[in-house]
């Protein structure tokens, strides 16, 4: 992946310590256990996606790695520096684009970047040049001298990401960098992130979208209730939950019993049933083939089909399969507002 790029520093030496390491992190807020023994390793030059629902502890973990919070128990290090004992030195090696855009609304895009450059201790001239470069790279030239208050959500995110790249630290933390972006802006953001990783930056990215993790991550860690409940490559996780999802809604209540028996034959053991919509769903190991077989069998049993889908697994599916817990119905809520609860 990085054959043509400068080798990451530690790969020149003997050290193969992960760029980001956490062991047994615990963090409590009053009676809330935000992190409950989180373990994590991210190899240098790779991107790990921390995937989990609202309240899983993603932001808390990022805040500990970036020295904004102290863990109650456990330890963590970034770029070889302990997050508690060597916090000051660690800061020169990291960049953070937090969940909320960290920009000053009353400054222009250019002023924001120049200010951050100065605070990274670039000289005035370098700060100005770097700001101009980043504005160019992030397609903000036209808006550069407008106050950030007037920026759209996507523009703010881009400016915010730009600000975290001023000196391009070796380790980058991106907390839900694409939440709230339209598909085009999201795609652009993905391109930038992918390029950064190709060039050797280690990235820890949190997301609620499996699709995003799938697109960008070398490895995915699924977090829930403050701990990592599964870790692996996208393929490994998808295989674990049974590949693509088949969903079929039956037209008549009378057919339900027959339908269930047929569906169980074709989808994995984790099939679920939603009675209000008479909808079955489950994993399919063989995608389209499985689907057409299912349709044939349902037809042969003259079960009326109201709706039929083959779709990529969502975070909901991953989560449901891994924890056996039911997600709250979220159909008419925006993704960022999703809440999960224990069944």
């Amino acid at each position, binding site marked *: 992946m990085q054959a043509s790029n400068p080798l990451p520093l530690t790969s020149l030496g003997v050290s193969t310590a992960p760029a980001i390491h956490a062991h047994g992190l615990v963090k409590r807020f009053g009676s809330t256990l935000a992190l409950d023994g989180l373990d994590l390793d991210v190899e240098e030059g790779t991107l790990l996606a921390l995937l989990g629902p609202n309240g899983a502890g993603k932001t808390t973990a990022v*805040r500990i790695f970036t020295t904004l919070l102290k863990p109650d128990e456990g330890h963590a290090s970034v770029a070889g520096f302990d997050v508690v004992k060597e916090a000051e030195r660690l800061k020169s090696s990291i960049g*953070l684009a937090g969940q909320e855009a960290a920009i*000053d609304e009353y400054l222009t895009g250019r002023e924001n970047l120049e200010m951050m450059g100065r605070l990274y201790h670039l000289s005035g001239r370098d700060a100005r040049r*770097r700001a101009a470069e980043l504005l160019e790279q992030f397609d903000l030239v036209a808006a550069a001298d407008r106050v950030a208050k007037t920026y759209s959500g996507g523009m703010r995110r881009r400016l915010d990401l730009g600000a975290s790249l001023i000196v*391009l630290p070796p380790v980058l933390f991106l907390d839900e960098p694409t939440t709230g972006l339209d598909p085009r802006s999201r795609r652009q953001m993905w391109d930038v992130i992918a390029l950064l990783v190709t060039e*050797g930056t280690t990235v820890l990215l949190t997301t609620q979208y499996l699709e995003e993790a799938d697109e960008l991550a070398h490895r995915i860690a699924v977090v829930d209730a403050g701990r990592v409940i599964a870790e692996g490559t996208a393929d490994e996780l998808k295989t674990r939950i049974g590949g693509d999802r088949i969903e079929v809604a039956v037209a008549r209540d009378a057919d339900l019993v027959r339908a269930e028996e047929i569906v169980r034959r074709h989808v994995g053991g984790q099939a679920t049933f939603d009675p209000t919509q008479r909808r079955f769903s489950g994993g399919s190991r063989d995608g389209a083939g499985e689907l057409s077989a299912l349709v044939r069998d349902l037809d042969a049993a003259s079960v009326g089909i109201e709706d039929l889908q083959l779709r990529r697994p969502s975070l909901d599916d991953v989560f449901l399969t891994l924890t056996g817990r039911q997600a709250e119905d979220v159909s008419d809520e925006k993704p960022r507002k999703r809440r999960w609860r224990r069944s």
Partner: protein
Amino acid sequence: MGTAPTGVRAAAARYRPVQRRSRFAWALLDAMVLARRSLLQTVRIPSLIVFVAIQPIMFVLLFRYVFGGAIRVPGGQYVNYLMPGIFVQTVAFGGITTGIGLAEDMQKGIVDRFRTLPMSSSAVLTGRTIADLGRNLFTVIIMLIVGFAVGFRIQGSVLSFLSGMLLLMGFSFAFSWIAALIGISVGSVEAAQSGGFIWLFPLTFASSVFVPVSTMPVWLQGFAEHNPVSVVANAMRGLFNVDPSLTAADTRSAVIQSVAWIAAILLVFVPLSIARYRRTTRG
């Protein structure tokens, strides 16, 4: 984007932080960067422009013409008595900008970013208080001009005028640090606003700002006389030579007390605010 960025890392690698500077130099430079930010905000937020430039003019005119006829001060002109007091009151309230600005920062992601930068953490506070100093100086200059237009005259030497202004700015800086501690402690902009104002009313009204302390009930005089607002206002009156009731000894004593107040407030509130800010840093 648009055109996909190429060589992000190579581009960034051209920029190296400046290394050779002491911690103190960085603390000061970082503070100046953030002071500039705060001053830019001032000119872009209309309500702040009103607070900094318009309200003080109104105050001067209202007190000069509404109370000016009714209030008699021994041996002098009320406008001459009033102006130094109103300067002190204005800069005391001016510090609230620091408190509100910090409370706002603390609620937003931007403080998280500052905290992950290799910058001096005290600069977030110092930047605000220095900006307040600049704003207050600007406000006082406007008030001086308006004051001269409505009859305010000072009589001392240039040196004592400048000393008076220096005291005023020292007082302004000290009070900004009190507001800073309030701003980072209260947790919301609204609370920083009300918490910033509420204690200033008794302090500035139960003082020599508008009327001589000797006209107040005895039980209040003790407080009003030693209150830093009175002390600084009196010192300025003495230095500007606008209050015939003040002897040279009175002035000297007021100047010394002012310096003591300023030093005491800074000694307590600067370390307290910075420690408090750092503590919230570490969750």
